[in-house]
């Protein structure tokens, strides 16, 4: 089941998260919803990311693919180069560079879609109200009372069950 609690400020949310974690709830069970980004103090609700690594790996892969393709194309249809090499790093450097960047851009966008969960099947989300911060907790029914107590103590103004 899902519980939602409404808060007026980021500090109260941080307090609720700390309290829930002390009760054994995991960071993956909690989600903070807001109309603008909320700064939660470090370590409480960190989200692991592979975006940078994937962008670098994708950039390198695109560069390699561009190199292989351009090299193949230039030997497959050799233009008269007047004694200059058929394939040259200098003349093709720009192409490799742009493909490298394109690889990074593509991977960043794809990883944004993946890590934000926009591509995956979603759990029910609360309706956002401007200026309010909502905390959603996924928990078993038997632990709902403990979670509710933590939320109320942290200053939640409304705790309710969220249905899909």
């Amino acid at each position, binding site marked *: 089941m899902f519980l939602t609690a409404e808060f007026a400020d980021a500090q109260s949310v941080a307090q609720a998260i700390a309290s829930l974690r002390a009760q054994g709830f995991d960071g993956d069970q909690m*989600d*903070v*919803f*807001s*109309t*603008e*980004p*909320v*700064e*939660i103090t470090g370590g409480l*609700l960190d*989200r692991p*990311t592979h*975006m*940078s690594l994937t*962008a670098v790996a994708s950039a390198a892969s695109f560069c390699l693919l561009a190199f292989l*393709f*351009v090299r193949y*194309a*230039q030997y*497959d*249809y050799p*233009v008269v180069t007047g004694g200059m090499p058929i394939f*040259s790093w200098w*003349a*093709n450097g*720009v*192409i490799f*560079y*742009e*493909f490298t*960047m*394109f690889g*990074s*851009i*593509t991977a*960043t*966008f794809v*990883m*944004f*879609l993946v*890590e*934000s*969960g*926009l591509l995956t099947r*979603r759990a029910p*989300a609360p*309706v*956002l109200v*401007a*200026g309010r911060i909502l905390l*959603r907790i996924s928990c078993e029914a038997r632990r709902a009372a403990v979670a509710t107590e933590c939320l109320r103590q942290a200053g939640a103004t409304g705790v309710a069950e969220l249905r899909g």
Partner: protein
Amino acid sequence: MGTSVEIRGDGLRGTLWRPLNGFSRRYLLALAVTFIVGAWGLGCWGYQIVRGIGVAGIRRPTMWGFYLVNFVFWIGISHAGTLISAILRLTDAGWRKPVTRAAEAITVFALMIGAMFPIIHLGRPWIFFWLFPYPNSRLLWPNFRSPLLWDVTAISTYLSGSVIYLYLPLIPDLAELSQYSSGWRRRLYRLLSLGWTGGDRQWHALERAMKLMAGTILAVAVSVHTVVAWDFAMAVAPMWHSTIYGPYFVAGAIFSGIAALVVAMSVIRRMLHLEEYLLPVHFENLGKLLLLMSLLWVYFTVAENLTTWYGNSPAEMSVFGERIRGRYAPYFWFMVFCNFVLPFVLLSVRRLRSVTTVTISGVTVLVGMWVERFMIVLPSLSRPHLPAATGFYTPTWVEISITASTFAAMVMFYLIFCKLFPIIAVWEYKHVSHG
């Protein structure tokens, strides 16, 4: 057909979303005028396709004319957004927040327009796709060593990156707007917001992506205008074959980009009544940037011309003379006045610096930078190495019409964008006001 956006949020949303509602008479008139001019330009292009490229004023030896001038100019303008926005984002300049989207939109539209010109310039534009590498029955591959191919890859990369860079921070606004709108707008916003719920995982992913994109797009933006500069520098033409051309073009692009941003912001501020959000301090800061770039531009211009003069090569001096005291001299000195003299006077004196003077400087710099592109393309072609081949370029009504229509198209795209999407990111503005 529902078009309303019922605002139930706080005052900020009310103000920033108000321009999305309804159509004023002035708006419709502006849209109609830009559409007619744009359509006229398309008609002229059609005329050129039917009658052949001879209807343009490009003749031997000036085989590049207005179309290439416009290409370089618009690609330069495209540096308004993504590059400036990326620099300000990476340096975490708080004042950037009301500015970035207006700038990023300029980039996308300017790139779309700029990328059209090499195609317009082609004698047979319907086979432009031969530039793309695809398996074909002719067993040919494009020549990747050609700067034209470099342009294709660089501009494609920059355009795709800029579209993503504009789109990503729009998503939270679109999700909010979908709650408050109805009819086709609701469907459009819901579709484009991709099911954004405002969860912290989404905010984290967005911030990470924007930071990464800012770094990448900066590198791409610099490369794009360097590649455009190399279109010239790789040719052994007098005053083109210069090592300084890459950075000279990049500096000029950022210069004209800031000018375009200033002008766009000034118009938006007045037309959409956003005086409360686009403050004099934003114009003051952009004015300082414009002044800095003006000084940098004049430094590059002096460096470029002084080196030529000292070298005293006959072919280069022929072009140099044509520019400084010959047939192109009025354009050259007008360019210096627009890009340096006037902005320097208006922007360096603190008392004179205001929204109006910054806007005036922006307009003159835009004019001056267009003339600068003209001065780069034409004199070198008019005075090639072979003295007997000298010529003078005069544009025809077809080229002038197509040029005018692209300016109209830019305004039209911008008008439509401002009516569909909030020009200031509400969440970014709120985020900074909290921070």
